[in-house]
């Protein structure tokens, strides 16, 4: 008897990814689709892709999707989720989308405790527009708009989204992961599953931040990009669970009145 141990996820369309070689988006797309399959939620999931490299996510995710204007994903997802509370609604966003132009929408969706999930790709640059400085760009990191490196006096500091969002009352589950190695990919998949389950259980706002490779704009090889996440980016943005109120909220719900 043979057993299928690896196959193309049902929720992932059979299109060739347009992403650059070594990019983390395709990995996160795939594991998210695997989670959707494993949870059996393809038919009730609605995704909101951002402006950015993932703008064409609807070419890959075989779930209902609506593209949001730059940064507005969490507002749009809030509108969908409040209208259809029994659907699983996620917003897929990059660092510029979430932490610059869409900071207000993301922050306040979290603060309202919107029962949605944000999958947040942090690759420390604006990828699609050609590698400009992002809110999460490292100090001294060279980009096309910080040619001498990011200087805190002029450009401010890398924005620590998971740390900040963990202090927001309405947020239930915040974890920072990475896709720099198979081990981390598996951890990210588990985190996305946990976030979706948090939403399905009606426990409120969840976000998974994923440190993700951008070899093209980092001007590194794919292997070096993974290493850079482990050695450099991951030091500035430590991996881990930043907030997890899931168990507490479940206990609260089960406790006798």
């Amino acid at each position, binding site marked *: 008897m043979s057993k299928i141990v690896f196959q193309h996820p049902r929720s992932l369309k059979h299109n060739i990814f347009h992403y650059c070689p070594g990019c983390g988006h395709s990995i996160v797309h795939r594991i998210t689709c695997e989670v959707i399959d494993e949870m059996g939620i393809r038919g009730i999931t609605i995704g909101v892709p951002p402006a950015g490299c993932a703008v064409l996510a609807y070419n890959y995710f075989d779930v*209902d999707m609506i*593209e949001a204007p730059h940064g507005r994903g969490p*507002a749009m997802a*809030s509108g*969908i989720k*409040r209208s259809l509370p029994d659907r699983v609604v996620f917003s897929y966003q990059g660092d510029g989308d979430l932490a610059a132009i869409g900071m207000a929408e993301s922050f306040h969706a979290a603060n309202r405790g919107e029962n949605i999930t944000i999958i947040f790709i942090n690759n420390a640059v604006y990828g699609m527009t050609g590698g400009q400085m992002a809110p999460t760009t490292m100090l001294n990191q060279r980009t096309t708009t910080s040619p001498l490196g990011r200087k805190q006096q002029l450009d401010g500091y890398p924005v620590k989204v998971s740390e900040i969002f963990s202090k927001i009352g309405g947020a239930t589950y915040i974890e920072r992961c990475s896709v720099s190695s198979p081990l981390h990919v598996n951890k990210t998949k588990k985190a996305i599953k946990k976030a979706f389950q948090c939403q399905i259980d009606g426990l409120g706002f969840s976000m998974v931040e994923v440190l993700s490779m951008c070899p093209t704009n980092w001007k590194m090889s794919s292997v070096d990009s993974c290493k850079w996440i482990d050695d450099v980016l991951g030091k500035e943005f430590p991996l881990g669970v930043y907030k997890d109120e899931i168990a507490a909220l479940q206990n609260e719900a089960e406790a006798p009145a």
Partner: protein
Amino acid sequence: MSGNFVIGEAAIRAGCRFYAGYPITPQNELTEYMAEHIRNAEGGVFIQSESEIAAINMIAGASAAGIRVMTSSSSPGISLKQEGISSMAACELPGIIVNIMRGGPGLGNIRPSQGDYFQATRGGGHGDYRTIVLAPASGQELADLTMDAFDLADKYRTPVMILADGMMGQMMEPVIFKKPKPRHYNEKFMLRGAGDGKSKFIRGLLLDPIDSEEHNWKLFRKYEIIKKNEPRFEEHRIADAEAVIVAYGTAARIAKGAIKRLREHNLKLGLFRPISLWPFPEMQLRSLAAQVKKFIVFEMSTGQMLEDVRLALQGYADVEFHGRPGGAVPTPAELANVISKICDKRD
């Protein structure tokens, strides 16, 4: 009921079940009315958003989910919403945007104004699109046009703007709410999860220029149908008129007062009141030029609808203008005085 309340009640009766908004004077009573009342309707959702930008994107999301949606604001806030209005037009999402205009530009002031005519009728945001714009001039019309706006938005799958001003929003008039029409909106346009079927997507980004051009022509063809089918206007004391005032909204009410006074002094004046500002009732106005050789445009602005009037009349009649911008509201007596001078000067 105050005008702002009327819009809210009419919207709920028309089946609006999702409202998002941000406080701004002089439309706050509408947001407050929705906060209190929309939740009483089954499935009704109210969100006080963190910004106008968030509000328009929230209603876009709810609209995609197949819900009847509305947001409201006043001039500076409507500028912020333009990104989302353009996006809704591109994605063909129905929705109602209420603009209770105040003085501008910039923060301007909180007095009634009509300075947003260009913004409303020329799309307002980026790109080649239009929104249907309805301009009520009474409490009753606030009720009727709000209900109609939902039907038009669904019919043409496009954002519809109710363009009123602080005077309309704040004044009180008795109103009878008509029976709303049943909603006809095809489920195939709704994004509610794929179920066992094929997944759908809604997008405004078309990277291939051939696709993008065709999408623009598709929208254009839709706008041409709207231009043919949906112009609305009122004619007042036109039959024997020798000169006609063209005004909308609050300005049209002031004009009616001025006409009444001037007719007592044997000036044969009438009023042409566009109710739909886009589509502008240009053919209907042009046909009047066979009978009337002088038109006086009156707006609470420095002259914006004036351009549409000139385009419609194509030089077949004289066009004069009187305006008060920046939140100034003339009395009927003041307007009557100005108009009698305009008529004396030329006759």
